């Protein structure tokens, strides 16, 4: 059994400041259009934390923000709609993940686990 875990915490006011100053860059390089539909700063902070958590868990390069897509199920549970799959074909088929995002006050935190 392979397990990979990643977590990240975002301080929302700082995230907001950087986001507002570099909107263009975030739109073109970090978030996907479908994620921007939820364009509320708190939500985006959560999505960003999830991406960072996934980057940490999978050991990705820093230019792959848009290779990861965070989406929400009907009941509000978040999941990764898209992320780079492992090269190993056997692992690839069984590869599963769980994602959890939480906000409180000025912080957003995300945990992600990949397992097979």
């Amino acid at each position: 059994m392979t397990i990979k875990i990643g977590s990240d915490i975002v301080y929302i006011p700082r995230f907001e400041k950087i986001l507002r100053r570099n909107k263009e860059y975030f739109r073109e390089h970090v978030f996907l259009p479908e994620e921007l539909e939820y364009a509320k700063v708190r939500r985006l902070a959560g999505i960003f934390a999830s991406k960072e958590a996934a980057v940490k868990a999978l050991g990705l390069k820093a230019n792959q923000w848009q290779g990861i897509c965070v989406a929400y199920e009907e009941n509000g549970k978040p999941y990764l709609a898209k992320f780079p799959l492992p090269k190993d074909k056997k692992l690839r088929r069984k590869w599963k993940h769980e994602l959890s995002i939480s906000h409180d006050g000025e912080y957003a935190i995300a945990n992600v686990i990949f397992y097979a």
Partner: protein
Amino acid sequence: MVYLDFAQIKTLPQLFHKACFLYTSKRAYTYRPMFRRFSWTYGEMGKHAAAFAQILKEEGIQKGDRVILIGFNSPFWVAAFFAIQLRGAVAVPLSPESNQEFIQKIIEQTKAKMMLKSSLVQTERIGMQTLAIENIPKPQGNTFLSLDNPEVDQDDIAEIVYTSGTTGDPKGVMLTHQNLLSNLKASREAISIHSNMRLISILPLFHMFEQMGGMFVPLSAGAQVSYAASLNPNHLKWIFQDDRINRMLAVPEFLRLLFLRIKARAKEQGKLKELHLLLGIARMIPFLSVRRIIFKHIHQSIGWEMHTIVCGGAPLEKEVGEFWEALGIYILQGYGLTETAPALTTNRYHEREGGSVGKPIEGVSLKIAPDGEILAKGPNVFGGYWDNKEKTNEVFTEGWLKTGDIGFFDHKGYLHVKGRKKFMIVLSSGEKVYGEDVESELNGEEGVLDSAVVGLKKAQTEEVHAVLLLKKDNRTDPKEIVARVNKRLLPYQRIQGFSIWPHEDFPRTPTRKLKKHEILAQISWNQEEVSLVDGMPPHLTKLESIIAQVLQIPLTEVADSKKFLADFQMDSLERIELVARIENELGISVDESEITQHTTIKDLKALVSRKNHKTIRHPFNPIPYAPSVVLARSLLQPLLLYPTLFLFAPMQAKGLERLTNLTHPVLFFSNHLSTADVPVIFGALPWKLRSKFAVAAGSDVLYEGKSLQIRFSKTLLEFLVPIFPFTRRIGQAKSSLEYTGRLIDRGFSILLFPEGQTSKTGEFQPLRQGAGILAIELEVPIVPLKVEGTQYIIPPGPEDAPPRFYWPKRHPVRVTFGEPFTIERTMGYRAATRFVEEKMRGV
């Protein structure tokens, strides 16, 4: 040609009603917020403004109430402005970049009752009633003549314009209807204008120069205005080409930067000599149209029609003006102030003098005070500052307005402006130096991007001090530059000291004028700091200040050997900010993954200094969509298409009756089985829809190959089908969506394969996210369709490989058209993609 009768127009509401009535069906405004062009006629504008005024009325706005208006240039801004006027209220236009504190201050000062704000402007909550100018419901019926609005008198205040100005505290300039209309009338007569003027509006509308030239003047002539949603060069090019822009208002800074860029480009290609030669030849040719042919490459990118640029807001250097005239574009420089609503003088087509600001417009009298200051009088001169008697008394002397500018009339009667009185440098010898004179010499130097010459106080007297903003690639020693310039200056004008400006640009006002007092303040304070960074190329200096700001450390700690992770604990957010700011402020794109744990500041400097290639963009190619080519295609296509289909693909088309009511443009979404899909779908379509049709082709397959075979097949297919490039890369879809939008604006229907690639199994694959964006943003009916059987004619090739030639096999095919549908904007991109997918599966 119908003109407005100005004798009867006394107020802005009257002007607006008359213009909207007279030019009802003329196209007034175009705007491209996303990928499509939206245009409003004058009638529609009238209805919108009336509906807007109705809402203001319901909100309790009465005659004389102040209403704040904040937004970027757009037709909505115009509608909101005139709605305020229709209600007899006073508009207070503010910059969309104003900060919270400033807005709050203005609200308190003017006791504003309401704020109209573009939803694109981010402000925190302000304790007052706010309406988004974009959210005005579409008006029903012919209501633009609703006249239950209060009567307005010509001496009522129409708007209060805040001047950030080049000096100090903001002051609210009160302009009456008469001020504005008298200036409008005189400006119209000075620059002959007519209804086939097509203007691009890029300067901010809250500023009087653009408001007069880019809103009132076109309105009064029934001309067309295109509002730029962004200043991105590609966006502007799109507007220039598609709207065939022939007029524009610009500030000297803009013309100068373009001039420098054209020169730099020529130098890069080793054609500088050629350019100078051509400019010399062009100057000898009296016909501007011939000059345009000489510089066709430049005119091509601005749409061939550019005729006149009206320039104002700051002094234009003679050299720059002459350059543009040599290109075959009239430059009409004018002069004015916010306080004079705004024009005072302007050059005319038949009365032009390079370097001057022209002759006074009708009704305006000017005289020069003994100390050289320009004084003005006329119906357009304002009555006073809002709630500021003291300042008002300061600017008037015996009924004349003190402009604060120094100038003189030459023997032909043209006014020349030397500079601001405030920034005149008085030397110990009593001689006066105008910074502008020295600046124009400095700016002519290679390597200097811009300069500011200020009087630096040194023990009782002032010295002529130059602040240089050097180009990124400057290699010349600034000392040499100053020495060279000094040789050309008069003895007392000579530069006694200089410093290099450490930041990316000088502080500027909204019309790009230098804020000299800020520059002076910073230079006087930071003299040591400025001299410290003398030797380094400016872009690296800038990089250091960006690093310091992002990591929030003092500039002195930014040392070459330090590592981003080990020494500064940089996290991913900071990395994003760093990369984003390097891209924004230095114009260099760095891949985030290039900054790793081991990257030192020195490495980053090396990265930034290296030339980077940008994302691939396919320029719009209008040739395949020209009417003559479309005609040739519609004759040739059947000759090739039907015999081929008869031979290889006996066809059965279903659902054609669903297409009978459709007109161009339509978006067809099809599943993708093989290369044979396109001719088969073409064969199934009725002629009416096929005549104007384009097909999205993966840009990586046909547009990025260099081999002769690929280039040939690309050109052939562009002519026969026609195909256009559509990227399949994630994060680059914007340019492709714009391309699609431009085709749809031209009335072309589009065939797209939203799965992104051919299906290997014949099964339907999940759609790309772009499908939802297209479905919503293009705002055209969508027809889902299904192709069956083509995979047996030409089997799908391996993924991402260029098309290979197969000998086709004969196989019956079937094309089924689904029910056309449209998608509401409120649905959202992701849901729209799902919706489209369901519809396509349902066929």
